[in-house]
């Protein structure tokens, strides 16, 4: 099947080349059958890459180690779910995933717009196929997922233990879906700029794809944070790591875009801004993909240097140059049809929000690339840590949260001070009451920024609740519906608006979790023997007893801990350090200690609650076992050299397993001091809850209104306006 896969990649390349030619030829000559043929090239690409993907997945599922990528990233003992997800843990598989997802989304948009934006679509098709050709070329010539070895190993290397987590397996497809969806508005913007068709149609056809890109990338970011918190042994969810930032930057820009396009749709304003923003988002999406693979920045995620940095840089340079050139050349056509009527208007709030989001993206961009910038300027690499990022992102984030409450309550075009007083009186009162209660009842005063965030979040939630209440009441009055029915009808009728309000509420909740957990966290890092205790905030953690589990794939040395509050046991936590065999050693090297010196992994003991999380991670040092391990290694190396028959091999393996088990059991029988990282963190769960609420809001906003409702709305207005046309003597 591998030759078939390789052939399919070559076919895909030809399809891309043909499609680009056909689309451009059709657009330039007005021979639209060629443009349609170019569109169909995208469908054909989707077909071909789907088959290629299925071949790759099948190879992983049946553990076909003749495929190099399967041998390097899977094994016969890898669980089936992780076998299915293992393709995208590799460079090769992830490149194919990129192309596949892109071809699917591109096929969808081009199918949906086959009778619309007929002048723009061919150029957009060419751009999308250009991206596909780039990634397919990388997969074909630099990192081929269908490369094989003449001699297939009997067993694969297996998946990195850090990736054996559900979040980590869903995280990459979410991120790639986000990145690939963001290329769609980018491509249509390029098409609109080339053709000069800079009305709102290209925006209206790509808006949902921009929103879907926002949704998927956001889910990917939150899943990555969740994985970091529950799987890595440091107890945090965000470290301003370059690869985390690489996903955040396009997400911030697309957030700005999906707000500012409303202004262009309604008022014909911000055309240059929107075009620049969506182009920047597309560039940042490719930049994010590049950062993960190039190794140019030091990151816990920077997966080593690869040969792909050069081609990516060339593509990014082309995208930047092309985008700037097009926007500058079309600036006359991008002139605004209207101007800002008033600073007290939703347009002004959206504009301010856009500026703040772009400022956030710039701060993150600057901090991320600063090591390279400083090296170019001063000759020495400078790195910026979380305190620098927090200095700028925290105040800007506070402004974004504030504006997410103000925006929905302020009218388009102009709002009067009297209307603002009516709109904001109740939410401001809620915010003030929240601040007062927190000041009186908690120690929030010692963290003024966190307190500000809590008050702002209360403001936002009150604004959203007020909007829902007033909207449902107004609809109920007009349509004669009961309030609950009116509320449901209101949301169904205005999914974009109220889905967006739900997103605002979700983000506010998420920030509450972030502010509380980062400002009021208690951490203790200490060494404990069984029976010893450590204080963490108002809780006491006690190391009760050690645990040992010896399995074929790993050895787990752990601890059971009891947590007490005011002398009463409130929780039991189990944490462990898992040791995987070292697969890099030769057959005669470290026959016993190899089972303890491979990739370790921390199993965090986590008790998550609505008010606080208790988190424990143990690191069991192997130093007390070292002399025994060295002795047994020498003993078994000699035995290994004297093996001559299969029967003796079986006896050797049995003896080896007994020794490994007995060494592991020493931790249970005579436990020594282990290092613990213990954390009590308030309201962490609200980060995940906020993410879920925001995702639900995004889905609601994304969902198309029922066709009948759309037709009814249009028909009603048409008839009213038609009457007026007649009355005005048209």
């Amino acid at each position, binding site marked *: 099947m591998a030759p078939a896969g390789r052939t399919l990649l070559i076919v895909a390349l030809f399809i891309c080349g*043909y499609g680009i030619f056909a689309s451009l030829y059709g657009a330039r000559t007005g021979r*639209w059958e060629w443009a349609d043929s170019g569109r169909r090239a995208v469908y054909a690409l989707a077909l*071909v890459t789907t088959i290629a993907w299925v071949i790759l997945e099948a190879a992983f599922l049946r553990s076909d180690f003749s495929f190099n990528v399967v041998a390097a990233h899977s094994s016969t003992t890898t669980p089936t779910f992780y076998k299915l997800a293992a393709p995208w843990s590799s460079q090769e598989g992830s490149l194919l995933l990129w192309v596949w997802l892109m071809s699917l989304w591109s096929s969808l948009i081009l199918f949906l717009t086959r009778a619309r934006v007929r002048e723009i679509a061919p150029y957009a098709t060419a751009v999308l196929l250009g991206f596909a050709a780039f990634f397919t070329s990388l997969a074909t010539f630099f990192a081929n997922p269908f490369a094989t070895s003449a001699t297939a190993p009997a067993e694969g290397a297996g998946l990195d233990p850090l990736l054996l987590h559900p979040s980590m397996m869903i995280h990459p497809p979410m991120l790639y879906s986000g990145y690939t969806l963001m290329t769609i508005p980018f491509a249509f913007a390029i098409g609109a700029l080339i053709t000069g068709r800079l009305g*709102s*149609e290209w925006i209206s056809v790509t808006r949902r794809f921009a929103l879907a890109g926002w949704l998927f990338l956001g889910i990917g970011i939150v899943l990555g944070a969740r994985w970091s918190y529950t799987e890595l042994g440091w107890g945090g969810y965000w470290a301003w790591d370059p690869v985390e930032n690489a996903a955040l930057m396009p997400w911030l820009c697309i957030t700005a875009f999906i707000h500012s396009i409303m202004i262009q749709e309604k008022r014909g304003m911000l055309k240059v801004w929107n075009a620049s923003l969506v182009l920047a988002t597309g560039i940042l999406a490719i930049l994010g993909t590049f950062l993960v693979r190039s190794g140019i920045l030091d990151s816990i995620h920077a997966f080593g240097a690869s040969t792909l940095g050069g081609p990516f840089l060339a593509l990014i340079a082309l995208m930047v140059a092309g985008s700037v050139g097009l926007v500058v050349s079309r600036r006359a056509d991008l002139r605004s049809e209207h101007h800002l009527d008033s600073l007290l208007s939703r347009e002004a709030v959206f504009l301010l929000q856009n500026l703040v989001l772009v400022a956030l993206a710039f701060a993150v961009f600057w901090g991320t690339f600063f090591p390279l910038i400083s090296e170019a300027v001063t000759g020495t690499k400078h790195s910026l840590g979380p305190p620098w990022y927090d200095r700028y992102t925290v105040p800007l984030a506070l402004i974004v949260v504030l504006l997410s409450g103000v925006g929905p309550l302020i*009218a388009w075009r102009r709002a009067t001070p009297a209307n603002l007083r009516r709109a904001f009186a109740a939410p401001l009162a809620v915010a003030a009451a929240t601040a007062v209660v927190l000041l009186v009842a908690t120690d929030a005063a010692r963290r003024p920024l966190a307190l500000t965030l809590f008050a702002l979040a209360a403001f936002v939630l009150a604004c959203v609740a007020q909007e829902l209440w007033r909207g449902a009441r107004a609809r109920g009055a007009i349509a004669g519906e009961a309030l609950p029915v009116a509320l449901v009808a209101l949301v169904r009728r205005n999914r974009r608006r109220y889905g967006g309000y739900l997103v605002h509420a979700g983000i506010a909740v998420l920030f509450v979790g972030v502010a509380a957990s980062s400002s009021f966290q208690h951490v203790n890092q200490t060494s404990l023997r069984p029976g010893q205790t450590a204080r963490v905030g108002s809780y006491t953690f006690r190391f009760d007893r050690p645990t040992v589990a010896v399995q074929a794939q790993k050895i787990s040395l752990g601890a059971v801990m009891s947590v007490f509050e005011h002398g009463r046991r409130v929780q039991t936590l189990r944490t462990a350090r898992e040791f995987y065999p070292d697969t890099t050693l030769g057959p005669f090297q470290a026959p016993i200690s190899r089972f303890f010196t491979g990739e370790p992994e921390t199993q965090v003991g986590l008790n998550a609650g609505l008010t606080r999380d208790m988190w424990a991670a143990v690191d069991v040092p192997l130093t007390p076992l070292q002399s025994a391990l060295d002795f047994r290694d020498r003993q078994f190396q000699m035995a290994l050299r004297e093996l001559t028959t299969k029967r003796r091999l079986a006896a050797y393996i049995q003896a080896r397993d007994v020794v490994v088990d007995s060494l592991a059991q020493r931790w249970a029988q005579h436990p020594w001091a282990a290092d613990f990282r213990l954390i009590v963190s308030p309201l962490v769960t609200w980060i995940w809850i906020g993410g879920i609420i925001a995702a639900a809001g995004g889905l609601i906003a994304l969902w198309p209104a029922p066709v009948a409702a759309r037709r009814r709305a249009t028909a009603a207005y048409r008839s009213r*306006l*038609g009457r007026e*046309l007649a009355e005005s003597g048209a």
Partner: protein
Amino acid sequence: MLIVVAVVVLVLTGPLRAARASRPAPDRPAGAEAADLEAARDAKYREIREAEMDYRTGKLSEDDWRAIDHDLRAEAIEILRRLDRVRDRAAAPRG
């Protein structure tokens, strides 16, 4: 693999074969302008509805709403007039 390639070739060449069979192409330039105007019309209708909703939820006073609504409906009428002119031009016999 040959089947896949054959299917791909059939898919790609479909429109080309249809064009050779002399099915008339749609009037592209007029269609594009009409599509732009339809998008603008739909956006204007949304604005009109949202302005009414803003009034009913207390963000706008009645006077402000009536003024804005009047402007929006005038803009919508202009769009409808332009749309009708474009459609009339597209439907007019050529030559």
